[in-house]
């Protein structure tokens, strides 16, 4: 899985800032803005959103004025997807099944490419890490972390 984006980094970053800025501004306007002497809850977010929008515009304008395309370097996207799915799986499992299963899901998903070439190594990593976490966090620091689904 590879991405090739030829648009300039600054244009894209500027666009993200612009969108976040405008959306925040519109949301902030639903709260009372107030007057400078007595600022309402919407004043500060609206102010910052305004600045962010300006930064977004400036970033886009600067990039277009500069005219040199600063293309985004290529990265494999697979690790991002694996990390995202792994973390999400952990969050969904930890309270239902406990650490032992949740950690297996997280490490299994995050190390998926390695799981196919060297499953023993991934298994050892999983056992060592889970045992470490269980001993240090649950036993030593007394965290409220279920280990198994029956706890």
């Amino acid at each position, binding site marked *: 899985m590879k991405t090739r984006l030829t648009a300039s980094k600054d244009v894209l970053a500027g666009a993200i800032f612009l969108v976040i800025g405008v959306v*925040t501004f519109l949301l902030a306007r639903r709260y009372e803005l107030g007057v400078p*002497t007595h600022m309402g809850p*919407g004043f500060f977010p609206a102010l910052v959103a305004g600045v962010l929008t300006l930064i977004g515009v400036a970033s886009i304008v600067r990039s277009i004025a500069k005219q040199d395309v600063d293309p985004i370097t290529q990265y494999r996207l697979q*690790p991002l997807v694996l990390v995202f799915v792994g973390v*999400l799986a952990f*969050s969904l499992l*930890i309270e239902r099944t406990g650490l032992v299963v949740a950690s297996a899901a997280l490490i299994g998903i995050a190390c998926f490419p390695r799981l196919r070439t060297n499953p023993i190594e991934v298994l050892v990593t999983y056992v060592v890490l889970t045992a470490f976490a269980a001993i240090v966090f649950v036993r030593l620091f007394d965290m409220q972390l279920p280990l198994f689904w029956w706890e």
Partner: protein
Amino acid sequence: MTDVFHNLAHGFAIALTPSNLLYCWLGALLGTMIGVLPGINVLIAFSILLPVTYHMDPIGAIVMLSGVYYGAHHSLSTSSIMLNMPGESSAIVICFDGHPMAKQGRAGPALSIAALSSFFAGCVGVLIIAFFAPFLANAALWFQAPEYTTVCILALVGASLVSSKSKLNTLGMACIGLILGTVGTDLHTGVERFTFGNLKLDHGIDFVPIAAALFAFSEIALRLGALTERPRIESRIRDVIPRWADIRQSLFPTLRGTALGGTLGILPGTGPFIASYAAYAVEKGLAKEPGRFGNGAIEGVAAPEAANNASAFTHFIPMLTLGIPAGAVFAMLMGALEVQGIQPGPDIMVNHADLFWGLIASMWLGNLMLLVLNLPLVGVWLKLLETPYRFIYPTILLLACIGCYAVNNQTFDIQVAAVALLLAYALQRLDCSPGPLIIAMILGPTLEENLRRAMLISDGDPSVFIRRPISATFVVLTLALIAAFVIPAFRRGRSSDRAVAEGAEAPALAADVD
């Protein structure tokens, strides 16, 4: 003056209690490991460790976290020297001469001189904190809402502008951080902002999941996406004891580096990269044969290493006395203190004298431990340096997930981190530095509160920020900083500026695209 010695004695009494001594040693040891292990830095370590420290007593927590911080700074030079791979931007400069020394078979003296100058700079840095912090705390009593507003802005602008990525985009990151900081119940009016009816957002978004997403998760996705083989250690360590000539040559560079770093560190938002870079430039300027620099000049290791460590310590001054963090690490330290119910600021020396002086004393002890830990065990650290990343990233992932969960014992925080990962990844791919976002998120409520108060006492007149002398100074400094970065960029044209920035960052990423 005698007060300071009296207080320091009191601090040592606290730092020398068995539990605090253990936390100090543990912090220094963990820090050293984090400094040498590839792919993990202080920010990642803090995202994991902060929730753990919520279960500890405040003094032990801050003593240990600080130990992790300066311990990592102490050992950062190891991978720069041995592998030409700086773990953090402040260690880039050490590569310039440290790695050539290693290639010439002089890795031992390079490592030992780095350790000795770190130790010296650390001792001086701790003394600067002890003597200077009370002065600054007194001065800070003059600070009112307008001053706090402008110094917050100075810290945010400073942190964004010294970033090695695109400075404008990084300012945008700071704005996103400020917006994230406003989520939750508004303290003045009780209005719930940006919660979308979700009760879990009432108290705001916790900064630990955001930090985990920014520093731990997206760093893993970026590294794995661009991974290449790590370089292997080429040179052997023959002798860690430096020659007399090495020590003599490093003496004055260490002194100058310490002075420079110690001074720069007090300014909020500068960061250790500036200090070590400036120290290197000074030594090169003063040298009789500047051509030696870049080819294994020992001064090029001693001075930046001293500056780096001196500033690492004096950065504590603005955080402790003003509540203004010098960088993302300190923003997170502040966040940890606030969770423990300790608000850094001018009163900290009065209200939490035990913590303040205990911390200072522990830093001195920790510094000594580092010297004892680093040199004799250099073989162990070199082994750690070669740990494959495929064992490190699952560790970070699991511990960071548990850390996110442990903040409030709710899975919602892990999901916040997962969603934040997507945005953090995209923005970091687009040349935005993540640090200022977390600084802004933690400083945001302070900034908003003081802006509101300043406008209230001035009757809505914004000139209050330039009518008060201290506040006006911060405004002028902020504008000068912006001018210093914007004007040369216009003159040179942006492309060459970008090339310099990327040249500096290249060894840090240590990976090309396949």
